[in-house]
């Protein structure tokens, strides 16, 4: 079924090299992947595997050394700074391991920040911001600042913020790494339901093995290359055994 689905992110021969003090490091050595619309994908890999670099590439945050990244068939390398900012603002939602909320803004202000950048009027962005906060179950905490909230609540605000401009893709960089098991599960549930109800493509970098239970496909990155891509049903037994330990 997946072969008929629309490709939302495609990379072709993606390579990235970092040059530090004359030493060249290959962070990615030719990655070709296709990610489909409304898919839930987990990207796994040890630290230093090139996972973060891969995320920066498909998130339009950095330019590849060679190769191409297409986000909905748009070549990211061809975009101007303004268009790149537009893509980041409207097409991609980012969720970070350490939430990255702006400390001096209330939850609502944090959520509406991308709308401000996107040029949405104050009334409209306030209305939409409240809707989003209610969606993540924080409708009554809109006036709280990040420091007045727990980690899980902050991450939920961050999720609401990432959804501000109805993005097509959600990029989550270890969204549960800083959370305890229970809150982590809540966040995963929120992501899953977003994926199912709104059809948002979710790409998660994670070490969290629970993620395997709910994703459509898994990717393993090692030494700057895709080591393995598998559908969930193919790895289910293996995951199950780990989860029951």
């Amino acid at each position: 079924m997946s072969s008929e689905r629309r490709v939302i992110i495609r990379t072709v021969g993606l390579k990235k090299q970092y040059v530090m003090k004359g030493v060249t490091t290959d962070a990615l050595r030719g990655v070709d992947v296709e990610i489909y619309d409304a898919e839930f994908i987990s990207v796994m890999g040890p630290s230093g595997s090139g996972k973060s670099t891969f995320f920066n590439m498909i998130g339009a945050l950095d330019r590849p050394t060679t190769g191409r990244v297409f986000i909905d068939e748009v070549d990211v390398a061809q975009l101007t700074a303004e268009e790149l900012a537009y893509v980041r603002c409207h097409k991609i939602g980012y969720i970070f391991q350490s939430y990255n909320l702006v400390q001096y803004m209330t939850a609502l202000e944090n959520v509406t920040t991308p709308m401000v950048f996107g040029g949405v009027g104050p009334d409209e962005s306030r209305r939409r911001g409240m809707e989003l906060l209610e969606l993540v179950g924080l409708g009554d905490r809109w006036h709280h600042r990040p420091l007045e909230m727990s980690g899980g609540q902050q991450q939920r605000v961050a999720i609401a913020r990432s959804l501000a401009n109805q993005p097509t893709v959600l990029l989550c960089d270890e969204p549960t790494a800083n959370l305890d098991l229970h809150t982590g599960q809540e966040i995963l549930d929120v992501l899953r339901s977003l994926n199912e109800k709104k059809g948002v493509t979710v790409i998660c970098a994670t070490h969290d093995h629970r993620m395997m239970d709910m994703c459509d496909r898994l990717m393993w990155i090692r030494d700057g290359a895709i080591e393995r891509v598998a559908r969930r049903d193919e790895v289910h037994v293996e995951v199950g055994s780990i989860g029951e330990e």
Partner: protein
Amino acid sequence: MSNVAHKEIKLANQPQLGLGRIFRIAVDGVRYRLFRAAVTVSVIAVAIAFLMNILSESLIKRRLAAGARQELSELRDIHLWAARLTHPSSQEAILADALQEGATIDFVSMLDPADQARFSERAHIAATYLAFFDGLDYDRRRALIHTSRGGAIFDALQDAEGLDAFAARLAEMPAVRFEGTLDVFRAFLDEWPALAAQLNQIIAAHTAAVATLDVARADRTIFTVLAQEGDAFAATVRAAGFQLKPALVSRLREQAQAVLEKQILEGTLSLLESRQFLAQQFDLLPADVSPNDLWHFLEKERHATLYLESIMPLSATLKPFAASRLVELATARREALALERMERLTAGAGGGFLGMGERMGWLLIVSMLVCAIGISNAMLMTVTERFREIATMKCLGALDGFIMLLFVMESCFLGLAGGIVGALLGDLIGFGRMAAVFGVSVFSAVPVSELLSAMGSAIGVGVILAALAAVYPSLKAARLAPMEAMRVE
């Protein structure tokens, strides 16, 4: 799962944010880091206070100096006229008169009417050159014009050789800014003999007029004559050819009166009893009593009465005095002394860069530099501290220009706040210092509009300084890669 309608990606340029929105975000940023902001503001405030202090002091001094000069020149009217009416003037005195605004040079009217305008114009130029030579230090003056003074300088430069030598020596002094160009000077020198002839004509007329007046006052001093027969004598003076304005006559009369009275009072010091009396009051030896002591003593009416009662029987001349008049004279004398002191203290005001002298100018520049570095440092720290925040904002769609503007604007707020605080502080310190030196008379001499515009420009300097100092940190922030937000500390 795939039944959800696909959202088409339509590319567009990210819109630029309005200034109002950036402004609000910047205000939030400053509010959150109030302590850091306060520190930066105080750095700016100190620098601006320094600038404003210098500005306000020099403005106040300038105003005071102008006021003091004006009042002193009025107080000296009597002495000026006494000299004018009794002694023929010199070339230099006539030329110095020409330089004073509103001065009427006596006996100019005896020149050919066609020549009069030309004369005052030339005299003004000559006086400017003389002022230039007077302003030179001894070595340079000696090198340029040897020991000549006044009109003799121009006489000496009449021959072409002397002038060439002069020009050569002037060229060796790059620090000396000559009035106008040398060609203009040459042209003036060509006209000098004619001007000198006119000056001599005026001097001759003056000498004749003084001789006439000498006959008219018949051995009485000029003060006595002015005090006793003011209007009648003024007519005689005018008839002799002096340009004595009617408005001046009553003032001259009063001042002449005061001069006479002072002479009489100070004359009582020749009595041993008077000296002994004052010596007792001040715990001095009779021989040490000076006119100053006398005047100081007479400033209080009680003392004045006492003095009159003790000394009057001994002196025939003292009778017509009232105690209150003595107090009046003593007070006037004290005020004149204060004015003279003020004139001395403010003599340097108005010179150099912004009227504050070269060294002050340097200090100011250094303080501004230190301030700019301080702001830059504080902004850099803010930027470093907010790496993650900035990167996140860029992930969320902020443009480089927005980040840049955000930080420059933030810095401008600090500059504005620091500028206002500093300007007020500088004013306050300036007032305080000036009041300590010159007394309360400072408050009547506040040049409000000049001070306000100086404050405006001081605040402007603060804002510009802050904006400039923020350019580098803001650039750094704007260039930050958005992927920094992904980094985990």
